[in-house]
């Protein structure tokens, strides 16, 4: 080996050992597309048509990884259910809604966690049994934003507290309301490396919302739903005087509340 080559190799070895070579040589591979597996696991590989029966409104970029607003707009009264899937999240199924037959839900807006650059799918089923899907790409939040609970002490201290608001609806014949539930909706964590104390996930897994006895919607959710689950939606009033919520979490807690519906404006 000539002196020059050996010197050059030494330099390369030195730089490599300092970690300088790494970024030059290695390229980050694109993550595999999880969607085919999700179609199999969540929708039993059933065929879907790509259309806008349920239109998904999602931001181009997640601003805060822990709170990303997304809205499902129901374009047909035949939609019986709709599921929001965040493909690259650890638990992709964020929320799955079943809509009451006469509820006339026009939209439902929720907030979710977005861990990384990801496709987000809205998959709906019309009452004829056909599946429809729409997809949007969402860029991950930058900086120190994380899909974690911001203020765990606060969330834990008020767990189960609820709030109800009504809004004037721009859709004729519909009313608009919002239901908020205090809950850390936490994904669980490994506490420390020495004791390996593990805190299990603790999240709201079911929420039923009714006007009188009639179902408006029922949601099954997971850890991709943001802390303090928040639902804003429109519906067709059936004349009932109250709106009620029953929420369940993974520790078996049941939270119930009922509010009078305001006079139609």
């Amino acid at each position, binding site marked *: 080996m000539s002196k020059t080559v050996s010197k050059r190799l030494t330099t390369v070895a030195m730089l490599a050992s300092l970690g300088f070579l790494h970024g030059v040589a290695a390229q980050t591979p694109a993550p595999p597309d999880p969607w085919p597996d999700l179609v199999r696991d969540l929708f039993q590989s059933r065929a879907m048509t790509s259309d806008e029966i349920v239109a998904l409104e999602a931001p181009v970029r997640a601003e805060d990884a822990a709170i990303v607003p997304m809205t499902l707009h129901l374009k047909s009264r035949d939609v019986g259910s709709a599921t929001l899937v965040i493909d690259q999240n650890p638990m992709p199924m964020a929320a799955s809604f079943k809509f009451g037959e006469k509820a006339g839900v026009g939209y439902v807006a929720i907030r979710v966690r977005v861990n990384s650059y990801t496709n987000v799918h809205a998959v709906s089923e019309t009452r004829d049994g056909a599946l429809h899907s729409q997809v949007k790409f969402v860029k991950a939040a930058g900086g*120190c934003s994380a899909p*974690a609970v911001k203020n765990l002490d606060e969330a834990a201290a008020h767990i189960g507290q609820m709030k109800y608001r009504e809004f004037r609806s721009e859709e004729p014949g519909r009313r608009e309301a919002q239901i908020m539930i205090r809950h850390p909706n936490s994904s669980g964590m490994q506490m420390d490396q020495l004791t390996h104390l593990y805190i299990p996930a603790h999240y709201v897994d079911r929420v039923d919302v009714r006007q009188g006895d009639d179902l408006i919607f029922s949601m099954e959710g997971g850890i991709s739903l943001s802390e303090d689950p928040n639902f804003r939606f429109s519906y067709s009033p059936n004349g009932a005087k109250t709106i009620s919520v029953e929420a369940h979490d993974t520790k078996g807690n049941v939270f119930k509340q009922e509010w009078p519906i305001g006079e139609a404006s």
Partner: protein
Amino acid sequence: MLRCVILALVFAVSCMRLAVAGTFSLEEIAPGVFAHQGQTALMNQQNLGDIANIGAIVGENAVAIIDTGGSVIEARMFIAAMQQKTSLPIRYVINTHAHPDHVFGNAAFVGPGVDFVGHKNLARALASRGAYYLEGFRAALGDAIEGVKIIEPTVVVDDRLTLDLGGRKIQLRAWRAAHSDCDLTILDEKTGTLFSGDLLFLQHVPIVDGSLLGFLEVADELAKIPASRVVPGHGPMVAQWPGALEGERAYLSRLTGDLRSAIKKGDNVADAARAAGQSERDAWSLFDDYNARNATAGFAELEWDTP
């Protein structure tokens, strides 16, 4: 040929690194108090994550490090620069909170006789966010993420704690959720120098990752701390105290006011996040990178607070 190109590239990259290393600034801003100014930027491979202000306080027999920067490479340059200033051992490594630009250099300081000090919530924040940060910053930092490990505190501060560096006492104070849920400040009694961590932003738009209302309240309480100068988490290395708080308070107040009226009007979170705080846009760097995020989180918080 290809090998030559690769070698040239490697050489160029390493020269760039050395240039960065050569310019790692560390100034004595008060007797025995050192500070380094990070760039007002997002963390990336070129700046090696060096975007936060970090510093050190030197007593008669020990050194306390305040934040470790955004990479192990930066932290090693910091250590080398400190060795030019003192031969005393590093006894404490204090993290002002859990964000990557303040803790990613921690691994460079691990060794016998070194305690890592943080807010009582720091370990929890690192546990729930650490893996995500390591994964999330891989793309932005490239090979500058090499060696970064999540190092948990060995000494925790519940409320207040005084550390003695030998003839020099520093007061640590843990705050309720504000910028984050594990903010810690450090006051050097001797020189009246306050290290605020990210409870104070200058130039760089403030970031709300704990509680908007908490941040405003804590800013009011911070103002009462009897210090004469402050090293903010971001922006100029040193500023006058407590006057330096004014810009941040104005921003947080405006954001709160805008969000409250949007909530009252019945706006949804996405619309409100686009509009709130925009009148402050010209006053700050990186405004478009963080304001909508602050507004989103602030909206979700204030919704509970608005009748």
